[in-house]
């Protein structure tokens, strides 16, 4: 409701005033496009790109260079957006090797780099002289284009909150490795959102160059101006639909007052503002507790996951997913041959072979540090094994990425649960449904179906709860539901029962049994609790110091002297 009002007001500006107010509105719109497009990478995907302004500069230069050669204005603007996009594509390769503060830092370093390029490539950029433009200043058209760009940016933000792509970004923000093992190919996603944001920045830059009629390196690549839109988005609240808009309106006004009333030390005042935002409001104004108590304003602080799930609470009669066929072409679901995983001189998994038939449940046991989780990591391609082969239903997993392996039908849980923390239960499961290999669901359908998986696993009453606020047991249940939602052929379950009460363990066993009996899922279960294993497993594999000690029934394992030694030490040894 607020947003249409703001934009109607913005659209009316050229009819009301032609001088100062118009100039001010143009600067606000330009800042808004930058702040909003910046927030796609930061607020959604969790990458703080401090060099966003550099793409504004690339757009401005592309426009200015082409326009001074007589290219039409529209083509110049399009070229500005395109140039910024291509630059982002190229820079994706080095930059996405980094995360967190490192990423923020390297992107900030882009500004001085581009400034040097603009200064030194004098043949193209005219260096420090800058490029003067003598274009007709059709101010209303220019204003209309900016307003259109701002509206499009809002549209993209809404779309990102309600699309498969947006969910992929939120998964990436929380845990890239889990996003991959849930079937998301992360690099193209990160690259795409980076390019999209840069295209908008380039567009705004091209229009700015047209508006100013002149550009030189410091105006578009200076550190002091570059951080303004970012500070605005963060001040409002990064990741919130209304955050960048509120931030631009308030800080834009403050900035304008500073410029007009402060003769010296403007940068200091701005730096102080940035510092204070960082110190007191890093989550943004809209996320402050005080604001959440004001009725109207509280609705502005709506987080992306604040929506009511549409699940009826009824599991229904249809199966959660079509069960795996019992008679596979290949007689083995998993065929591990001589897998070795070395870290430096230490072989965490040393020449392990393992054959598993469809519908089997295998217990994988061994003392701490015997290589159980490392073997899981090799199978799900979290690690690339040093040598050996892993074949899933006749398909070799060599040279497969984590997301490809997930698509082929390997689902897994983690020993220390790793749900997507700032997403709700239903979103966690829905992401697996959207990105699974076997008949992936449309995001709307996935959000409904996810409720059934939660109900099946026993957390149907916690659909709208943020995953990081769940109890340990519920986190484990959620991970199991998420892994099952990917319709796996082979499920790797890592110590789900440790730390649980006997009742809870029994519930888990029932879940595993249902997964096997109803959906034909083959399971490897890493666990220390022998009585729990005894209830369900067909076979047990004992690892010790990375090698396979024995394979057989539980009784054989318990009575095996070498297994006893591995667990309790040999006879006569001091306890």
């Amino acid at each position, binding site marked *: 409701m607020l947003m249409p009002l703001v934009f109607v007001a913005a659209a009316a500006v050229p009819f009301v005033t032609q001088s100062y107010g118009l100039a001010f509105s143009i600067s606000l719109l330009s800042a808004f496009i930058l702040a909003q497009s910046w927030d796609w990478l930061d607020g959604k995907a*969790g990458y*703080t790109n*401090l060099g966003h302004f550099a793409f504004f500069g690339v757009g401005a230069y592309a426009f200015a260079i082409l326009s001074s050669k007589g290219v039409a204005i529209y083509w110049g603007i399009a070229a500005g957006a395109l140039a910024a996009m291509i630059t982002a594509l190229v*820079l994706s*390769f*080095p*930059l996405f*090797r*980094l*995360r*967190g*503060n*490192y990423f*923020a*830092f*390297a992107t*900030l*370093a*882009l500004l*001085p*780099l581009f400034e*040097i*390029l603009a*200064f*030194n490539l004098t043949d193209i950029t005219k260096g420090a002289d800058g490029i003067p433009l003598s274009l007709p200043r059709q101010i209303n058209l220019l204003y209309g284009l900016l307003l259109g760009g701002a509206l499009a940016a809002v549209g993209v933000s809404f779309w990102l909150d309600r699309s498969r792509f947006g969910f992929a970004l939120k998964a990436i923000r929380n845990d890239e490795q889990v996003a991959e093992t849930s079937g998301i190919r992360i690099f193209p996603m990160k690259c795409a959102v980076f390019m999209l944001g840069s295209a908008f920045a380039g567009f705004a830059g091209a229009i700015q160059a047209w508006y100013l009629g002149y550009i030189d390196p410091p105006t578009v690549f200076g*550190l*002091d101006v570059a*951080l303004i839109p970012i*500070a605005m988005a*963060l001040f409002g609240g*990064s990741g919130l639909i209304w955050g960048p808009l509120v931030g631009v309106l308030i800080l834009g006004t403050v900035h304008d007052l500073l410029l007009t009333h402060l003769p*010296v*030390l*403007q*940068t*200091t005042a*701005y*730096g*102080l*503002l*940035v*510092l*204070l*935002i*960082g*110190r007191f409001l*890093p*989550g943004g104004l809209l996320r402050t507790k005080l604001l959440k108590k004001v009725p109207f304003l509280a609705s502005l602080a709506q987080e992306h996951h604040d929506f009511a799930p549409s699940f009826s609470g009824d599991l229904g009669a249809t199966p959660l997913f079509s069960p795996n066929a019992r008679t596979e072409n290949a007689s083995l679901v998993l065929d591990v041959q001589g897998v070795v995983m070395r870290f430096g001189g230490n072989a965490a998994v040393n020449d392990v072979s393992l054959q598993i038939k469809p519908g089997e449940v295998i217990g994988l046991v061994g003392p701490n540090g015997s290589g159980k989780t490392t073997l899981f990591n090799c199978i799900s391609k979290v690690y690339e094994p040093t040598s050996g082969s892993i074949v899933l239903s006749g398909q070799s997993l060599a040279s497969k990425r984590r997301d490809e392996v997930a698509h082929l039908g390997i689902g897994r849980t983690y020993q220390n649960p790793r749900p997507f923390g700032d997403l709700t239960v239903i979103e966690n499961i829905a992401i697996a449904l959207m990105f699974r290999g076997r008949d992936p669901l449309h995001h709307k359908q996935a959000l409904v179906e996810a409720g059934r998986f939660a109900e099946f696993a026993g957390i149907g009453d916690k659909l709208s709860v943020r995953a990081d606020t769940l109890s340990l047991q519920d986190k484990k249940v959620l991970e199991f539901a998420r892994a099952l939602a990917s319709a796996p052929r082979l499920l790797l379950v890592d110590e789900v029962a440790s730390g649980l009460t006997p009742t809870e363990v029994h519930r888990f066993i029932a879940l595993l049994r249902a997964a096997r009996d109803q959906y034909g899922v083959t399971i490897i279960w890493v666990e220390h609790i022998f009585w729990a294993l005894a209830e369900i497993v067909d076979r047990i594999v004992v690892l010790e110091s990375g090698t396979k000690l024995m394979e057989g029934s539980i009784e054989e394992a318990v009575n095996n002297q070498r297994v006893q030694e591995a667990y309790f030490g040999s006879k006569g040894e001091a306890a």
Partner: protein
Amino acid sequence: MDITIYLQLMIGGILLGGIYALVAFGLSLIYGVVRILNFSHGTLVAIGGILASLAYTDLGLPPYVSGIALVLAFGLFGRLFFQFLLEPLSARTPKEAEIGVVLVTVGALLMMSDIAAFLAGPTPKNIPVRFDPIELGDLILSSTQVYALAGIILLTVALHFFLRYSWFGRAIRAVSQDAFGATISAIPGKTLHGNTFAFGCGLVAIAGVLYATMFPVDPYMGFSLTVKAFTIIILGGIGNLTGSLLAGILLGVVESLAAFLIGSEWAPGISIMLLLIILVVRPQGIFGGKPA
């Protein structure tokens, strides 16, 4: 004759690289222990250089005297900066803390360079102490730079032993490897973080004074120094002093050769280009160390 030019350039690069490495030590130490990437790190170097230069030209204080005073002053500044602006952020969610640290240090960067330019003027300053140049055949070495490099190498060795054998050194290595484990071993984690930050800032003061004896410093050069230090950390590995020294020297030599071969106007861009290339080719760094 030709080879002499290159030799001269190499030596100039090594001397330059030593100072870069020294700037990187503080950044690396702070990041390794406190997990804070201080964006205003290089700006502090510039401020230190400007202050030492003013102290020399206006008050006649020799660099080592102003150096000692600055180490203490910067250490105190670092402690307070950490205590009041950075430490309170650790109570927030990880994402908010991360953003908060970036904004606080970037804000400090903008403020410090602007205030320095306002008070001391934007013109470059240096400490004009000069000794007779050393001549080795055709090679001419600035003895100031040679002394400075010798000082840096001594400091590296001293730091190495300090970090390895002193209580403080052992404690911060423990914290950098496992902060929680260190805390339950009765190492006061928070105090240590503050002191490490202060220690890193103290190192910066030394770097600033040495820098100003060799090259002019201006209030706006800070961020490009931070970029160089960051490149060195990526090349040399976090917390790896020897790696940082080698990486610093490598960067210095590459910059000095590049300035000669493709023009000095490109020199400030070398470190960023090198950083981007390294990230693609060898993200774990050249001299081993942890991946970024």
